[in-house]
């Protein structure tokens, strides 16, 4: 059932005081010089906590020149299409209420994302739920005809990623995954530099990232009022509520977030896959070492060293937390690309931006050189593709392949065995248990 904000606030006991207009504002009708509704994108937002909040388009901005926030990528020079956040969904009424206040106007409010997806007025959705929901929500959004911007990592299992690719293709939907580094100018400069052979054939990409937290013990409790915890867990295996495993901290649980490798790995290795032209393939083997937490609630690797061997061409990708930072650019994470004739640093790759060496920034590809697609910005590229129906820069197949690296790294880490991987059939060739871990059946009514 759809919940209008008036009833919602009343029933949830949330912060009152927001005055609700019963008259449709002129801008909604395209009057007073405002963009007509036909040109305005209607966004739905699923998951509006930390990251999801940053996608909101306040009603008051409609009719103004709005530029993408820097952490959406791009150089911020382009004005976004008019858009309104017309529908908001979260399983936590507190967050829902805060987002509604931030957006203003009269957004439709939902606790069940299926009701939002049924809304025929919503053109596209931003999904910023915890990772274990990304796949199902994206697939179901495609079923409902919505274009999708979904946060990274794309998925929690290999099977989920493949199902997301299939859903996007089945319905011809635009799905942009939020590894926005590819849309940042320095990443494009680095890609142009490397793909034009300026460091020779790349043989090794060394990523570095600081370690994950090892956690402590916080007692399980009842969920706070207003949080639908059953829905929060959704398709994942059931686990009692604990505040240190939910909002903002789910990242360190394999079932929900997957640790640093699945979080920042989906940024740093996204740029690597892009530069190395590996958006449609994967490694031939994966080997991992490191230490999980000795104690505490979390189960993702604290330190990790994952070696991915690619074939034809042969190169090695190494995810190391912590690893060896670049000697050229100071940053908390990134990657150094080592070629036959030189090397290049590409840092970060997420909402904090991307940087690369001056030699790549100054490089101009020759006319007959390799041309690399330059995204106008991640959000802008998404908007463009909604109109043109082209695939965005971080399309679903590319995102699935990046997530596959993260997932396979975690499986190899858990099993402490070298996995031989068939990137065409997406199966482990030498390990029965690892193959079973490529899929995780959904819980209750939630299935791929």
């Amino acid at each position, binding site marked *: 059932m759809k919940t209008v904000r008036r009833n919602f606030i009343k029933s949830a006991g949330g912060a009152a005081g927001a005055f609700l207009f019963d008259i449709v504002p002129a801008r909604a009708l395209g009057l007073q010089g405002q963009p007509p509704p036909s040109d305005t994108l209607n966004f739905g937002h699923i998951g509006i906590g930390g990251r999801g909040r940053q996608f909101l388009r306040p009603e008051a901005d409609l009719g103004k020149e709005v530029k993408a926030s820097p952490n959406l990528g791009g150089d911020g020079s382009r004005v976004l299409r008019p858009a309104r956040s017309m529908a908001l969904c979260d399983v936590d009424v507190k967050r829902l209420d805060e987002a509604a206040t931030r957006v203003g106007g009269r957004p439709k409010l939902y606790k069940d994302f*299926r*009701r939002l*997806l*049924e809304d025929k007025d919503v053109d596209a959705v931003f999904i910023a739920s915890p990772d274990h929901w990304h796949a199902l929500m994206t697939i*179901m959004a*495609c*079923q*409902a*005809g919505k274009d999708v911007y979904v946060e990274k990592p794309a998925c929690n299992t290999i099977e989920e990623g493949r199902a997301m690719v299939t859903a996007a*293709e*089945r*319905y*011809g*939907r635009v799905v942009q995954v939020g590894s926005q580094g590819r849309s940042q100018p320095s990443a494009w400069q680095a890609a142009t530099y490397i793909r034009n052979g300026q460091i020779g054939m790349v043989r090794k990409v060394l990523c570095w990232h600081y370690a994950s937290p090892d956690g402590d*013990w916080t007692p399980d409790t009842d969920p706070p009022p207003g949080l639908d915890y059953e829905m929060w867990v959704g398709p994942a*295996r*059931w686990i009692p509520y604990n505040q240190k495993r939910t909002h903002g901290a789910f990242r360190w649980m394999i079932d929900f977030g997957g640790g640093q490798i699945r979080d920042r790995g989906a940024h740093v290795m996204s740029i690597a896959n892009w530069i190395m032209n590996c958006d449609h393939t994967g490694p031939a083997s994966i080997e991992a070492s490191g230490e*999980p937490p*000795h*104690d*505490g*609630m979390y189960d993702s690797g604290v330190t990790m060293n994952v070696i991915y061997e690619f074939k034809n061409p042969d190169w090695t990708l190494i995810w190391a937390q912590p690893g060896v930072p670049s000697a050229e650019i100071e940053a908390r994470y990134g990657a150094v690309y080592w070629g036959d004739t030189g090397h290049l640093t590409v840092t970060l790759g997420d909402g904090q931006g991307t940087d690369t060496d001056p030699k790549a920034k100054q490089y101009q590809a020759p006319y007959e050189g390799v041309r690399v697609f330059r995204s106008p910005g991640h959000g802008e590229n998404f908007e463009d593709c909604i*109109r*043109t*129906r082209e695939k965005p820069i971080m399309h679903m197949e590319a995102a699935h392949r990046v997530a596959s690296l993260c997932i396979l790294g975690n499986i190899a880490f*858990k*099993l*402490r*065995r070298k996995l031989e991987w068939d990137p065409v059939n997406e199966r482990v060739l*030498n*390990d*029965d*248990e*690892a193959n*079973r*871990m490529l*899929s995780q*059946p*959904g*819980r*209750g*009514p939630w*299935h*791929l």
Partner: protein
Amino acid sequence: MPDRAQFLADIQNQNADVRFAAWRAAGDQEADVIAELGKLIAGPSPGISKAANEALTTLVHSVGKDPASPKRPQIVKELLDLANSAGPLAARIHAFRLLSLAAGEDSVPAIAKSIQQAEVQEEVVFCLERIPGNASIKALLAAYPNAAAGFKPRILAALGHRRAAEGLPMVLSAMRSSDKEIAMAATKAFGRIGRKPAQPPQFPPTAGLTGWQKIDFMDSRLRYADAQVAAGNHAEAMKVYKEALDRPEEHWQCAAIIGIARMGTPEAATAIFPKLKSADSKVRITAQNAWKSMAGA
């Protein structure tokens, strides 16, 4: 390798680093530690509970690679005993989850024994879904008639997830259920299995479906049609696609166009042609792209 007694003492040590060293090396232990670890999982100390939990997991990982591992049958047997015991629920649940990684077809009857127990049946189905081979499909089919109405959709979902062609007769029967949830779960399973039945299926009436169920309903039909294209049953697929093409929803039209284009036949081109001039830009562009892909093929 520490002996059994030392290992179990280390798992219960007050020092987290000692516990860690013990559970990291648990793969060296024999299967008879499983029952003891099961008791510790539900204990009052979260640190010891974690160590026991991780030790069990490590033990299973130590035999997970190769189904022919000589130690694997003993470990699976002990896990089955723990899963089906009257012991703490947390330990039983963990045992079922680990069985999903190591149990073979011969263990399926023992796993399925608990499928009608409300407190673990979700874990049992999860476990069966993950075990390769037909035995788990047969167990799900056998459990279905006696399952509570509220749990039947879960079993149907598992059959759909496994693309269980053997389940098709039961799924077709469930699609005719007067219980809307069961009928819809069966329809979803039918779409995922993607096999053409001998007789046309009887779908649940759409009139009584919720908004989301209607979306699921058409999705299931489109999945079925896509599977028919892949199987070369173009005529069967075209029936569904033509229905979708006539719907006002642009995404169903797009899905039909994309599916039809995969056939690459003159009939496919004829079906797509009118959509090249669709007033809806998404449909029009999708049709244009499909047209180009067929021309290229």
